[in-house]
């Protein structure tokens, strides 16, 4: 008997992922992506990883999707719409073919290999304090490297965008 919550969440994830790629307006697509990511956060809660769900919502929905929305607004043309040419039909068909083959291969392998009767072990969650201690002791080096990497990424992104603006200004002056 499939769990109704799981079915609802997976339907939300799949349908809004398809909507994100197929929506005519890019803005609506970004909102669809946000709903898909929220659905994934719900799956994390079902699997007992509440803190990951919080992290997923705050980082993905709160930061990444908002960043994408801002970028979409920045790359709009004066007419207010992004010029998006129609994909040629054979490209879409090739995409469906490749994606379907990959998904079928993965799902078939899973059905063959993973026993359906595999039950999840008892688990009552762990307190956040324990988790923080574990993360800061066993993964201390990785955390520091992650921090440095995020700083480098921010500086790199700013540099990319800023240098470009100076070049355009000098180009306009010539």
């Amino acid at each position, binding site marked *: 008997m499939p769990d109704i919550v799981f079915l609802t969440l*997976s339907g939300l994830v799949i349908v809004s992922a398809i909507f994100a790629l197929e929506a005519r307006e890019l803005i609506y697509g970004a909102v669809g992506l946000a709903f898909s990511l929220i659905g994934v956060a719900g799956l994390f809660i079902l699997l007992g*990883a509440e803190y990951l769900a919080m992290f*997923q919502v705050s980082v993905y929905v709160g930061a990444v999707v908002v960043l994408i929305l801002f970028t979409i607004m920045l790359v709009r043309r004066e007419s207010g719409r992004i*010029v998006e040419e129609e*994909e040629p039909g054979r490209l879409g068909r090739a995409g469906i073919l490749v994606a379907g083959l990959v*998904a079928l291969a993965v799902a078939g392998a*899973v*059905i063959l290999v*993973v026993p359906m009767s595999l039950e999840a072990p008892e688990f009552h969650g762990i307190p956040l304090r324990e988790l923080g201690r574990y993360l800061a002791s066993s993964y201390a080096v990785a955390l520091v490297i992650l921090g440095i990497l995020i700083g480098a990424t921010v500086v790199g992104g700013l540099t990319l965008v800023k240098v*470009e603006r100076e070049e355009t200004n000098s180009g306009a002056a010539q």
Partner: protein
Amino acid sequence: MEPLSSYIILSAALLGIGIYGLVSKRNAIRLLFSVELIVNAANINFVAFARYSNPPMLTGWNIVFFSIAAAAMEATVGLALILVAFRLNGTIDVRRLNRLRG
């Protein structure tokens, strides 16, 4: 509780949708959507396998923690590149950004 294979099949479906977008879309921002979907498919697998191992392994969850942070960074750099490409070319259609082709 759902069997493990249902989570993996869901993740395979999400991976398929992401690959479909990567193959057939021409807008750079939609390609970024597809990459995010594929990363999320991998994350679901990590969390599900960690939960269904006995005893549950926190390692998989921590890997997802780092993976989400890395995906946020990837989106930042990707969007900066898209912005630069738009300013240089006036389009973000990846099939017309072919200036590097010989």
